[in-house]
């Protein structure tokens, strides 16, 4: 592993299992909300935080073999997802104007972050296949 890869400070590959565990628990917790009569918003907040934590862990966890090509792909995907989020926020007024506030993402930070993570994972998948 070279200096550039160490500078990224990624978590060991074993964290992937922890991330999937948190993700499953969050989804189950969110489903549980449907049968709970108590404070639903608190459950949703906790489940959403758990889901976001799992996505973050997956994003910053090393792949099985983390080499320089993978580092390059990762950096491209990070850049791409950052640009994606900025473009969403910039174009949001137009989207709100045309389609109404229901489609606006900039006020709903959680959805924006989740879509950003998905954009990042899709970019990694596509770049891995194409490069």
């Amino acid at each position, binding site marked *: 592993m*070279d200096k550039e890869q160490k500078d990224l400070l990624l978590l060991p590959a074993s964290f992937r299992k922890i991330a999937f565990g948190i993700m499953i628990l969050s989804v189950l917790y969110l489903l549980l909300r449907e049968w709970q009569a108590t404070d639903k918003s608190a459950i949703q907040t906790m489940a959403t935080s758990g889901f976001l934590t799992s996505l973050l862990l997956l994003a910053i966890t090393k792949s099985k073999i983390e080499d*320089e*090509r993978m580092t390059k792909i990762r950096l491209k995907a990070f850049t791409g997802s950052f640009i994606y989020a900025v473009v969403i926020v910039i174009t949001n007024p137009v989207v709100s104007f045309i389609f109404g506030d229901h489609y606006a993402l900039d006020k709903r930070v959680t959805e924006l972050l989740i879509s950003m993570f998905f954009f990042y994972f899709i970019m990694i998948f596509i770049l891995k296949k194409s490069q």
Partner: protein
Amino acid sequence: MKNSIKVQRAIWDLTQEALAKRIGVSRQTINSIEKNKYVPSTLLALKISRVFQKQVNELFELEEGD
């Protein structure tokens, strides 16, 4: 930039997987380098040259437009 890694692999009877293991990268990385889709760093190029006991410029060659 073109390279002769595939030829050298054949000479040394190494699979992509075996070469990848020896230099600590994934098999996909070796495949990408061979197909000229990915240009390796100096460090990786030196590691490859050490495996094949060749100079780096014997393995990698600049093309027109590089």
